[in-house]
């Protein structure tokens, strides 16, 4: 159990690091996917720990995966649009919304 939690914590840390440091939008998106998987892992783990006969955590994980798929599709579409508009996927150079 501890091992699983340590693993999901590690995944979360990697995802956060990626989101904070990467400049490429696609890498950013992949980092977000990693973050979501860390959360999914926790759902399954805690479900097994407290209510093993119910499958609540598993169902949550499945829903989370499908949402991640949607998010990836939308995110990629956005990145495509951003690339067409600005000619780059470097998020450090896209500051169109600066106040």
């Amino acid at each position, binding site marked *: 159990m501890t091992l699983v939690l340590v693993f999901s914590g590690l995944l979360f840390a990697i995802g*956060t690091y990626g*989101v*904070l440091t990467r*400049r490429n939008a696609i890498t*950013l998106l992949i980092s977000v996917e990693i973050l979501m998987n860390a959360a999914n892992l926790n759902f399954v783990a805690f479900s097994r720990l407290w209510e093993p006969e119910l499958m609540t955590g598993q169902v949550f994980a499945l829903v989370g995966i499908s949402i991640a798929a949607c998010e990836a599709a939308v995110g990629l579409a956005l990145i495509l649009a951003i690339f067409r508009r600005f000619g780059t996927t470097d*998020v*450090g150079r*896209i*500051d*169109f*919304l*600066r*106040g």
Partner: protein
Amino acid sequence: MSDALLVLMPFTTLGVAVVLLLAAALHTRLGPEYRAFVDRWTGPLSVFGVAVPFLLALVGVFSTGSGPRVEALWFSVGDLDVFFGLRLDGLATVMAIVVAGVSLLVHLFSIGYMKGEHGYVLYFAELSLFSSAMLLLVLASNFFLLFMAWELVGATSYLLISFYYYRPAAASAGKKAFLTTRLGDLGFLIAIFAIFFHLGTLRFDEVFEAAEAGMLGAGWEVAVPLLIFAGAVGKSAQLPLSVWLPDAMEGPTPVSALIHAATMVAAGVYLVARTFPLFELAPAALTVVAWVGALTALVAATIAVSQRDIKRVLAYSTISQLGFMVTALGAGVPEAGMFHLFTHAWFKALLFLGAGSVIHASGLHAVSIDDVGGLVKRMPITAWTFVLAGLALAGIPPFAGFWSKEEIFAGLLAEEPVLLGVLLVASFLTAFYIFRLIFLVFFGPERFAHGEVSRFHESPTLMGIPLLVLGVMSVLAGFAGVSFLGFPLQDLMDLEPAAEEGHVTLWLLALATGLGVAGVALAWWQYGGDRPLEADVALRRNLGPLYQVSENAYYLDPIYDRTLIGPFLSAAGFLAFSVDNGLIDGAVNGFARLTQGLGALFRRAQTGLVRDYVTGMAVGSIILAAVLWRVL
């Protein structure tokens, strides 16, 4: 006369006014042949519009009892039922004959006078509108309708005074007239509020009945008549609100004849006579009325003796004569005041129309005694009818003004010897100033300061007829109210006098006539020679400061400018430039600037970079997690 016909009196004129307003509005869009058609029929149509009420008013003389009346519920608000009520009793009949009669003659005169002027159709539309408002005022049988007509008359007179709106003097004269009379109207309005508050009705009969039963209470019993009188002071140009009438001479001269001689300025006198039962309850109010009238009569007469513009002489003369009427009302002899109103309307309208005839012939906008002289040979009808009216004004028997002034003097004789003395002096001055004008303008050597005197010709027939009719009235109108014919006019009006009926005594007749003749003689002695203008200059030099005071109308206008208008303007300026621009705008702009500054500060947080937002989210999440950790 049936009641339904009564409605026709104001509304025929109003209908004509509406048609003419439409015609005036469409005038520029019409083709030339239609425009000629409109121009040709405008005059006859508007004459028809006032001829109908005039004939109906004449029929009204023979109606019995309290006269025809119509009344219909107009609208109700809470406890207030407002009626549309018209009533042609004796007092209203006399006034309606004056209003419609003078209006009819002025309309006729205007056809010639205004021919070819800019805004010809509009002029007649406004004139008809004024006449209908005035008839409504005369016929109203409750305070609400009376006040509405009162304000309509004020508004239309504003339009007519400012008819030459492109002249700055005319535009500001209209404003001055409107605002000055509004000051008095405010008092009238407060009086109406008080009447409704205490008596719960606005119909004349019910108001008088309730007031006589003492339902107004001690304070309001005096205050209400005084407040009503404030309205009359404004409209009838009494002191201290007299300053608007001389300026109102900027309007076309027939307008001056109609509004500023016979009808609107007389409306104040009519109002007091109409609400006289309220005045009777308050002797204190009557005393105020009498003194205001007498002072006005004297002051205006002393101003009139030195004015140079023909119409201004007549304007001050009108103020003075209105003062005579108001004095009579205040002395408790309203029928004498109304009798003087009746006679004065005809001969003063004639004087104004005569002045109009001279102005029309001169081609100038205004004519003063410096401009013209000796016109009697070139304009005989104008000159001799003017003399007739002058004799009537001066109170020479047997002309109209003599009889009505005599009635006023007789009413004052018993109880008010001081007022009688004041009016006798004013009467002497009246004879002097009007014959000063007559000798300077119509007699002596022929002269015209702005060109050849040969340009003066008698006015066209259409303008001559009203002059002749009014000339006849100046001679005959007085007989409507003389004792040896049994006071027919007074019987018709059926007013209750508050004072004992005066009796004309022989010595009073002789004194008044003597003063009138003396005034004329003095004028002849001063101005009857070959060099009248030089005589005037000599008089001016000899009298010095006295003449100055008179010529500048007691400096009333500058005094008002200094004491009332000046401080008011600076207060308005302070509010506009310091308070509004500084304080209020400052506060509003300050808030705007504050928002802008804060925005400029916080916009830095909005970098537009995804990384910064994500960092913010991460840091926020960590803080949130830490807080939750503590709490749980």
